[in-house]
């Protein structure tokens, strides 16, 4: 039963992370194009920071960093009279009221909080990748389109929202669909973040069971459980591939690209 539940957890993670990461990416790409220099630097730095470093290190880093950051802020807000330093050598100490989630909270709060942290981490990391894709897509929109918009007397803002953004998607789609595949393949990393996901349950349920503790004793079946997961992911990526190909076909219709031209010829 738990295994099925954890499949739902993975699907929920994908369903939440994909739009949020896209929003992060959009904000990052927009910031990287901004005229206001500090904002532009911020956007560029956000895009650049995930290069050159193993992503899994980011996953491990962000979860602790976010957790401590939240607790630190709550500590500042809730316990003004605290006089001990927060970093005591190797320990990170905040007052009881600032613990996140509260020590006496029920179990499901802890689990949801861990899951939310994981989603946020995924969104930040994948947002940076998406920002890079969208930034490239924005630059790929033919310049003549923007000049035409300017010639019609549109302001920068209008050009951006009415001409650039609607046209960039077709350039962004190959990159984004690649990203989606990678996101699917990154979901087992949830396990590292301490969420009880399919990897966790496959290990738990697959391990040897003796008749003393369960009605269904069996040997070490973990190999078969992981084979099942492997097949699950293969089918998932295969289906996504097909759907995204369809979508690309739909989007290229009527665009001033080779793909669109080919569609026009074929029709």
């Amino acid at each position, binding site marked *: 039963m738990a295994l099925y539940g954890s499949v739902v957890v993975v699907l929920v993670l994908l369903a939440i992370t994909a739009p949020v990461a896209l929003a992060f990416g959009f904000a990052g790409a927009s910031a990287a194009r901004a005229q206001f220099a500090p904002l532009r630097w911020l956007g560029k730095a956000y895009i650049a920071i995930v290069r050159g470093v*193993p*992503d899994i290190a980011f996953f*491990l880093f962000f979860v602790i960093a976010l957790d401590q950051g939240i607790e630190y802020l709550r500590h500042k807000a809730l316990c003004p009279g605290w006089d001990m330093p927060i970093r005591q050598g*190797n320990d990170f100490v905040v007052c009881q009221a600032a613990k996140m989630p509260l020590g006496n909270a029920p179990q499901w709060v802890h689990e949801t909080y861990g899951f939310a942290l994981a989603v946020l981490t995924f969104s930040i990391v994948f947002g940076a990748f998406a920002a890079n894709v969208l930034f490239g897509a924005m630059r790929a929109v033919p310049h003549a389109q923007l000049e035409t918009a300017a010639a019609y007397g549109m302001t920068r803002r209008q050009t951006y929202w009415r001409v650039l953004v609607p046209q960039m998607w077709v350039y962004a789609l190959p990159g984004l669909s690649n990203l989606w595949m990678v996101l699917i393949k990154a979901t087992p*990393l949830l396990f590292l973040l301490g969420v009880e996901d399919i990897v966790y349950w496959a290990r738990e349920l697959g391990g040897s069971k003796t008749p003393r503790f369960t009605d269904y004793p069996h040997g*070490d079946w973990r190999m078969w459980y992981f084979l099942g997961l492997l097949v699950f992911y293969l089918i998932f990526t295969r289906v996504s591939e097909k759907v995204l190909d369809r979508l690309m076909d739909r989007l290229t219709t009527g665009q001033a690209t080779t793909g669109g031209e080919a569609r026009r010829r074929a029709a």
Partner: protein
Amino acid sequence: MSCLQTIQDYGLRAVGIGERLLPRDNFTLCEQFTLIGSGMIWNIYFGVVALVTGFFFATLLGVGKAQSSLWLRKPAEWFIFVFRGSPLFIQFFFGYFLFLTLKSQYDFFDPFTAAWLGALIVLFCNTAAYSGEIFYGALQSIPKGDVEAADAYGLTGWTRFKRVIWPTMLRLAWPAYTNEAIFLFHATTLVFFTGFPAWQQRGDALYYASYFADKTFNPFIPYPILAGYFILLTICVIAAFGAVNARLNRHLPQANRRKIRLRPNLIR
């Protein structure tokens, strides 16, 4: 304890030489640098060996996928699909438990459950599949004129492949292959987080980095150190592959050379 002493004690800790016990408290910056650096030995070992061996298999896969014969094409296509379509993380787990099950049946598989061999095999298959796809793409984009010129000179079979097709394929594929190499090195950090046990706490760089982060509850020191090491490694990889790239392109005029562009890539 001076820093030099620490380096002597822990510099080769990841391969089991030096102090047995890891430092337990009062971690100094020097200890963190040394231990994480010594863990890099494993990352470099996995990356280099998997790349070198994987390269040959990848060439086979790429050529196999480009064949018209079904018997050659289908196995190559399926191999590439299976290893590119599933997460490396799951592949590691599956590989480990597969070897574990085999080990209980046959003694021959005893070393396969250790990271140095078992994880290496998974990484080898994985990088062979990814590079095979890159090589296949490059084979498809070899200029028709090159092959026709080879035919006109009377080159056939193996000679034609060795003299014309293979060098051109490598030249076209090299920028993408460089990226593949970089991300293979990044992927080596996953090894000790999957089933493969770090025997006697001989782990890779990330293993030690997370050890420190766990002990100190402070991620802001070990992970940036790890990141620094990986950036250094990435620079080395780019330098080495850039030299090969320059050699592959040496007959071309300066303007036509394909430059290596680092593209941000991703987990696999």
